[in-house]
Structures are given as C-alpha cells and as structure tokens.
C-alpha cells in the first residue's frame, strides 16, 4: 500500500502530514503534489494516477483554490514520467508572470470570481469522491486553510459530500491550520504536521 499526497507541494507534499501518516501506517510514501494547486489540477492528476496505479491511498489537501492550471504555450519541455512540467499555476495572488502571460492580470477578478471558484471546487470534490469510491479506493480529503462556500449553487453538492472522508468541507472553522493552532502546534513544524497525520489516521479509522 502506498500513501500518495495530492495538492500543493509546500503545504501538503514534501515531508508534511501525508509523509508522517505513511510512517504511522508503515506504508511507502509517494509525493504527487505539484506547484499547480487548482482543484482542476488535483482532479486531473488524481484521475491520471488512478488510471495507472492500484493499491494506493490518496491524501488530498485543498488549498489556494482560487487558482487555475495553465500550460505553457511557448518553449514546451519534453518529458518522460508521470508529471508534465509544462503545467503552471496562475493564482489570484500570483506574481512574476512571464511577459506573454501578463495580460491575464487584467481579468483576475473575472477568472477568480468567488462564486465561480467555489462551484468549480465543490463540483470537483463530489466528482472525485464518486470516482475514487467507484474504484473502492479509500481516501482522505482536507481543507488546509479555507472552506467551500455554502450557497444556492453548492448546497446540494455539499450535502452529497461524504464527511467521514473529508475534514472541513464548508466549515470555515474546521480547516487544518486552525485545528493545529487550537491544539497549540505550529502548522509549519514537524510537530504540527504529525498532529495532522494523527487526525488523518483517525479519519481513516472511523468508517
């Protein structure tokens, strides 16, 4: 069994909670996190990973959901292996865009409209949940720092979300950063991440 982390490289990947969870469960750890943090990017990578692998447990951390995955249009890199390095992340708070992409900034408010971002995210959570369950793949999702907004467009989808597999969902007080802070830990430390790993394990155990 492999524990596979999906989401943001800095917040979810590297030696963060999923890594410590793999140690707790005595499993191998695979870091499938990337710089592209948008829900669409996570959706694309998880579906691709599931189509190529068996016997894995995805740990999906949602963060910086107001972002879009884009793919280089000039000077594309040749690649082999799982990850396509030509994908890049464009986020609402992103800076240092290449010259050819700077015109995107004029449409930031349109591209990252709060309702649009929320509906996309919520929709992808439900779809990914059903996708993983259809293959009988156990998983845990968690919100790193924000929550899905409950509104007329998302409420039916939110009701469909399996809360036994997802920490946070629409509750802004239940994201992981707030959770560790409440317990007196710092999110950015090993202790904080071990604490999150414990929570993820509890979630996996509570069937």
């Amino acid at each position: 069994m492999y524990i596979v982390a999906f989401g943001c490289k800095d917040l979810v990947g590297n030696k963060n909670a999923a890594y410590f969870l793999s140690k707790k469960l005595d499993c191998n750890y695979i870091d499938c996190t990337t710089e592209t943090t948008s829900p669409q990017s996570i959706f694309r990578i998880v579906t691709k990973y599931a189509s190529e692998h068996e016997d894995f447990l995805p740990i999906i951390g949602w963060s910086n959901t107001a972002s879009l995955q884009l793919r280089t249009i000039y000077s594309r890199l040749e690649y082999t292996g799982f990850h396509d390095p030509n994908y890049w992340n464009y986020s609402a708070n992103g800076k240092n865009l290449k010259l050819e992409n700077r015109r995107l900034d004029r449409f930031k408010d349109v591209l990252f409209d709060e309702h649009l971002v929320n509906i996309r995210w919520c929709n992808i959570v439900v779809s990914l949940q059903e996708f993983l369950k259809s293959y009988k793949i156990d998983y845990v999702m968690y919100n790193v720092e924000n929550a899905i907004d409950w509104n007329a467009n998302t409420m039916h989808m939110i009701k469909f979300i399996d809360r036994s597999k997802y920490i946070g969902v629409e509750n802004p007080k239940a994201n992981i950063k707030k959770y560790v802070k409440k317990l007196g830990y710092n999110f950015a430390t090993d202790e904080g991440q071990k604490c999150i790993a414990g929570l993820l394990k509890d979630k996996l155990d509570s069937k």
Partner: protein
Amino acid sequence: MTTIVAIGCSHTYGTRLDGIQSSSLFNINNNFAALLAKRNNFKIAHLSQPGGSNEFIHRQTVDWLTRHRKRDEDYIVLIGWTSPFRMELRYPEDSDVEHAALSKIDMKYFPVSIGQEPEIAQTKQFKNIHSILPIMFEETKEYDMWASYALATQRMLQKNKVKFLMYNTCEEIKITQNNSSIINLFDTITYLNPTTKDANFLYWGLKNGYEKTECWHLKLDAHIAWSEYLEKECKKLDYF
C-alpha cells in the same frame, strides 16, 4: 415513466435546428433528445446550453445527480461532449447582468468559446476576454481535462447505477501523452466512438448528407436521424 436527461452544448440544445433561430421553444422541443423522448413517450429534462463547455457538461451532470435525481425514478442520461476550447465564466453575483438563454441553468454563467462573437457578452470586460483565450485554451490541457471529465462522469454514473449514453457532438477527443491511460479506461459501450474522427453528431451528419447551417449546426432532419441512432444504441444496452 422514464425521463431522458439531455446534457450538452448547442448541438444538444438544438441551436439553428429550424435553420433560423439560435434559441427557440421549437428547437428545444425537437432536438434529438426530445425526439427520442417523444417517440417513446418518455419525459425530458433539458440541461444543455449553447456554448456549454465540457467543464459545464461535467458540472451539470454532478448538479443533476445531487440536486434533481430522484432515487425511485428511471432515467437515461444523454451526454454530448463538445469542443474542448471553451470555458465558463460568471457575471458577478451582485450585478444585474445575466446571460440570455432559454435554459434552466444558473443565468449568471457566461460560456466563452473560440470564435464566439464578443458582442454577445454583456460587459466590456467580458467582451475583451478573447484576448487571453490563446493562453487559456492550450490544446493538450484541454484534451487532458476532457479525458478526466469523461472518465469521472462515466464512473460516477456507473457507481450510482444510472443508465447513460455518451458521445461527441462536434469533435473527437485527441490522445495526449497525459490522457492515454485515462482514455484506455473509457467504456466504449456507453461512450460511443470517443476518439474516432467523423463519428460525432456534426461530422456523422455531414458524412451522411445532412446540410449544416452557416454556424455549423445541423437541422431537424439530422436531429431525427441522430435520435434514431441513439435509440438503437440505447436498445442495445437494454435501457428500454
């Protein structure tokens, strides 16, 4: 009684089906999904939208499953995937601006596609959005996402024991370095010819001698023929 749920873009919606109007009750009531329903005395739920993207089609399917589906009713969901070079934007929630279409979907949604007349947008910023479309619509990305949307939709409907049939309406899905393993998992009994050129509604129609309108839509005769084709495929699957 069975309900046909039709999800797709303008080809499913019936745009220019009468050769004249882009959106009218006649067109909606005579698109291929409605014709299939009428012939078999089924109910019909129209959830398509002109300009709808594959992201929209995926979202509509999730929305239907979580909001509208009643567990004790019989449905056949018809999903017509569209050109990948499209996306959804949304007019601000607190503005009065809405996108005009005869449809029951969220009226704030504004579909954007390559080649679309900027004038149909209601605000200056939305009219100018075309300047960034070459960056937004990178080809591999669009085919990668289409494959993920289609496989996830297939698995979601299978898991929830919903009868469905998927097909392309105007373009085939292209295989990329990223999406080939996903495409290999398509169930080609329920997703008809996903990667075959000229097997989608539009090109199948043209190949069979049906006339297209100026804006590349097929008319009533082609809708009748496609509805008969879909009916045959549904019967092969023992849906009715």
